[in-house]
């Protein structure tokens, strides 16, 4: 069992109610949202989606005093931050992470700005172990890039997060490039989180929409695969050679299969994309990291390990719990599934390399009462 320092790459912090976020909207947008009289508020979150029959949250993560899982710092601290030797937790938002699924791009811009300010003020100020993703409304990539640059001097806003796809093209398409220019310029990795299609616009699955959460969740990696292939085929890593990409909540066992196929296709189809100068797997090895969750469960433990090893992913995997979601992976569980010689890399070292943290600094114990602002 692993008992060393841990970095958690996917922790969903949530707001407890709409009022929390409305406070961060500008006066005009606040009026837009709340001024509908008896019609009630304009919904802040995207309304598409499929119900999980269990609910999306672990039942024991609902705070005792009421409220939503992930919304209460003391509960999150007790259940996650203090429950192991956690040195950093990267916050990835709850339902608000789907804001790029809003049809109204101007509203989405405002929500992204408000979400990031809410994350800084309501969360980062409370615990030095917390770091936050920068949510962007990719409907308007130039505005999204400006939002990334707004946080350039805040080292605790550690990555740019993309989830829903508002424009229908893979995320490598040039229309999204202003976001990557800003990410590279500010030294932030781009994170693509599972569900990275949008529930309905466009579907998160290739071939057509599915009808149950069972299907959708099984096919979660498909959208991530689309975006990964798109990044490489459009030459994003040639154009932005210092850009790094992290794939969150898509699993990892599919990566060898996809890259083997992708490399083979490159040999025959290079003519179409001569700006792609190297084998796709070489770009992947240099630029892409992968969150551990959910680790695929192979019938024999070694089968999935062999797949991971075949792409040297033990040096790219980053532990992610997905707390407080229903399908979160525990540290104890994961450490029994992975070879012991990988533990320090997957639970700590790889994330340090990706996010530029010095391991020796993170290993120093900082009393949480020493609040970082």
């Amino acid at each position, binding site marked *: 069992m692993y008992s060393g320092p841990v970095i958690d790459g996917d922790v969903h912090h949530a707001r407890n109610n709409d009022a929390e976020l409305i406070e961060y909207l500008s006066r005009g947008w606040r009026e837009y949202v709340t001024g509908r009289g008896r019609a009630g508020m304009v919904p802040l979150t995207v309304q598409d989606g499929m119900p999980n029959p269990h609910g999306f949250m672990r039942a024991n993560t609902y705070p005792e005093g009421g409220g939503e899982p992930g919304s209460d710092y003391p509960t999150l601290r007790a259940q996650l931050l203090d429950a192991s030797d956690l040195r950093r937790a990267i916050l990835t938002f709850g339902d608000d992470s789907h804001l790029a699924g809003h049809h109204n791009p101007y509203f989405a811009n405002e929500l992204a700005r408000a979400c990031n300010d809410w994350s800084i003020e309501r969360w980062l100020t409370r615990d030095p172990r917390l770091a936050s993703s920068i949510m962007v409304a990719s409907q308007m990539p130039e505005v999204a890039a400006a939002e990334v640059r707004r946080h350039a001097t805040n080292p605790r806003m550690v990555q740019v997060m993309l989830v829903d796809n508002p424009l229908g093209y893979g995320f490598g398409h*040039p229309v999204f490039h202003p976001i990557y220019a800003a990410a590279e310029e500010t030294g932030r990795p781009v994170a693509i989180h599972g569900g990275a299609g949008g529930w309905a616009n466009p579907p998160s699955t290739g071939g057509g929409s599915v009808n149950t959460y069972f299907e959708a969740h099984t096919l979660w990696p498909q959208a991530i695969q689309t975006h990964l292939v798109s990044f490489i085929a*459009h*030459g*994003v890593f*040639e*154009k932005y050679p210092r850009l790094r990409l992290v794939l969150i909540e898509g699993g990892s066992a599919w990566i060898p299969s996809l890259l083997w196929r992708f*490399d083979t296709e*490159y*040999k*025959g*189809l*290079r*003519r179409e*994309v*001569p*700006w*792609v100068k*190297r*084998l796709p797997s070489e770009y992947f090895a240099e630029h892409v990291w992968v969150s551990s969750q959910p680790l695929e469960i192979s019938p024999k433990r070694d089968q999935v390990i062999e797949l991971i090893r075949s792409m040297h992913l033990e040096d790219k995997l980053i532990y992610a719990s997905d707390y407080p979601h229903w399908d979160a992976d525990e540290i104890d569980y994961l450490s029994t599934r992975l070879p012991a010689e990988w533990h320090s890399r997957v639970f700590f070292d790889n994330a340090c390399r990706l996010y530029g943290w010095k391991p020796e600094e993170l290993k120093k114990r900082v009393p949480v009462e020493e609040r970082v602002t």
Partner: protein
Amino acid sequence: MSIDVGPVADFEERRFRIVNAGGHELGVLRWQDRFFAVHNRCPHQKGPLCLGIVSGRLVGRAPGSMEVDDDVPVIACPWHGWEFDLERGRALWEEGYAAKVVPVRVERGRVLVDVGRSARDPAV
């Protein structure tokens, strides 16, 4: 062993001509008045390499740009499109993977191939 595969005039610019040279099936290409010869057999799945598309190497200096480098003739196998430069036979994605090219030269208006030696031999 040098083998005469015909007069220069028999070779059309930018078009492979398949010849039998000492029992070897070769493709011989005239390209901007230079000559290239390669075994007509793709190292991938043994496809008839020289029946594929010949072009200058396509180059993309930035995403979306498409230019032709006519200094580097390339053959794309008709079976799977794998591309090889004709000067040294190297696959465009990996120098260590190659089609088998052979030395070729012109003497007194005749095209000669040397099937006993590899064009990648540094001595050539």
